């Protein structure tokens, strides 16, 4: 059981030595506590920069559709499922990709840490085998990693990459999640008024920065519906109904494609609860069409196909 950071560096160096890739996308130490940051290296000497820890929250697959050439990419479970999504949608060539798979036990949710720290600025954070020690100017607290995971990591059943060319370290045991859609069902049980109140309340916070869209790997369209001007589907301002439509449609466009990596939630600067939309659609896609995103690269996306006996109870 070696140090994964070292193993990634070795794997990267080897890939350059054997001239298998032109670029490797991984993580390096960030400039702030609790952060790792995406890193692009093009030669073996730079492999030293690569790290792996519980701060590697970004989904690096988001960089793939625009890149050309032979690329090595560090991918945890959710990232690898995004890559499967790209293969389904023919956005990347499998031969040009070397997936460096990392079994993952979850990534720290910075917002959870900040909430627990309440007042103080976090000045340093160190990850150890038995938890994360977070330091402020006049406080220090040790927290267990399990207590700091976001919901998307808590209900993750694909901690091991579903496809990879190189696997770093040992596979981890998959979580047994009794009911990943429990909160969704709970929400479904509320009245329409309650649901509208929550939805409109959450979207009221939105500042239309599009961090969610840009952080999301599956939002790769060069001409996004938001920017359409012929026709302009809805307004660009923060007016309530325009923002509500933005979120409904973005969630819908990710139907059957979202792998619940949590990148959108982490990117949002004003803490809009985006996941409650995406998770609902994920549940429906599973129930209606027995389909899970990011599983089988050869199975077509659910909304591009059909079956004769598809559910139509809702049709008059």
């Amino acid at each position: 059981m070696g140090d994964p950071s070292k193993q990634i560096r070795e794997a990267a160096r080897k890939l350059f030595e054997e001239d298998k890739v032109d670029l490797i996308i991984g993580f390096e130490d960030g400039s702030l506590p609790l952060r790792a940051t995406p890193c692009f290296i093009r030669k073996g000497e730079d492999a030293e920069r690569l790290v792996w820890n519980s701060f590697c929250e970004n989904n690096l697959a988001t960089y793939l559709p625009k890149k050309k050439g032979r690329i090595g990419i560090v991918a945890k479970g959710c990232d690898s499922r995004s890559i499967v999504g790209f293969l389904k949608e023919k956005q990347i060539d499998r031969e040009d990709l070397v997936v460096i798979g990392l079994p993952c036990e979850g990534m720290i949710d910075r917002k959870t840490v900040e909430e627990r720290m309440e007042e103080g600025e976090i000045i340093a954070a160190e990850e150890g085998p038995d938890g994360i020690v977070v330091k402020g100017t006049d406080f220090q607290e040790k927290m267990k990693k399990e207590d700091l995971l976001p919901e998307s990591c808590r209900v993750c059943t694909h901690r091991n990459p579903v496809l990879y060319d190189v696997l770093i370290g040992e596979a981890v045991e998959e979580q047994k999640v009794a009911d990943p859609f429990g909160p969704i069902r709970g929400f479904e049980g509320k009245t329409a008024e309650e649901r509208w109140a929550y939805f409109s309340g959450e979207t009221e916070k939105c500042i239309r920065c599009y961090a969610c869209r840009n952080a999301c790997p599956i939002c790769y369209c060069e001409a996004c519906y938001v920017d359409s001007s012929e026709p302009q589907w809805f307004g660009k301002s923060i007016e309530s109904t325009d923002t509500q439509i933005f979120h409904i449609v973005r969630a819908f466009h990710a139907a059957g494609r979202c792998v619940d990596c949590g990148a959108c939630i982490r990117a949002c600067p004003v803490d809009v609860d985006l996941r409650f939309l995406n998770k609902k659609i994920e549940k429906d896609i599973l129930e209606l069409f027995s389909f899970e995103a990011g599983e089988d690269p050869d199975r077509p996306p659910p909304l591009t196909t059909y079956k004769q006996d598809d559910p139509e109870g809702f049709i008059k």
Partner: protein
Amino acid sequence: MSLLADLTGSCQVLAPVRNGDSLVFDEIRARDEIHLSECNTRKSVKEIFFPQRERLFAYRGQETREPSFPDEERVLFGVRPCDARSLCLLDPVFDGDDFKDPYYCSRRRNTTVVSIGCNRPMRTCFCTDTGGDPFSLEGTDVLLIDMGETYFVRPITKKGENLLAGRPGFEKAEQDQIRRKGEIIEKAHQSIHSGLNLERIKKELDKDFDNPLWDILHEKCLGCGVCTFLCPTCHCFDILDEGDSRKGERIRIWDSCMFPLFTLHASGTNPRPSGKERMRQRVLHKFTYFVDNHSRVACTGCGRCIRACPVNLDIREVLEALQNPE
């Protein structure tokens, strides 16, 4: 803080309040709603003067109707000096020699800014590099310094003096209080990590527009608009008409140079076709073009972009790389 209680009685007071796990500026009616912490608010104060969505006029047939000018007196309380200073950077744009935005100007006129100095600058603060200071007097009408049990109050402008005139709860500062204030200021200065030489950076930026460094610096940028929307000095906007041929309104909304559409021409060409050109433009605008036009850097070192960037793209690292090309 009796001053606050007194103020809320007579005019609208906007101050940082806790909203979920972040701080935002909102109206307060009672003094215990305010929440001052060592961390700055998530969003800047620019939206108080330059709203994210603003109606310029409404039309109906041939008639147009402009919104009335905001004339309510208000107090913006608990602003950090970097944000107060940012108003001085927005003024040349919206209240300049060539053009004055009447809505912005009336909001500026009607708002008294009460800032509070930063006893404990955050690690992401670099105001001193940009010409600011944790106790800067720029852009504020009254400066407060937290002394523990009391606040040191210093009116800076006539407006500030007028605000404080006749209000209860003030005492003249004593010698040891003045000394302690000096210590607080000194300690704050020592804790700011500084290291950027903006004059040198401007020279490097002006030297080579096609600097190959940009290929590397922009690579992890997602091209979202978080940095521009949270930045206290970013002020790009778009003007749109919403409505139909009979009636509607013309609105101004925040725009971002990071969006691909920002420079998309009707012909379909885009002079800034990729994230590289857009990021380069943003840095050049803030750290050299604005200097050429208005003699100051369009950045107050508040650090919001650093904290909020989804991929931890740190503007300080970008500037350092440009300052010290290897």
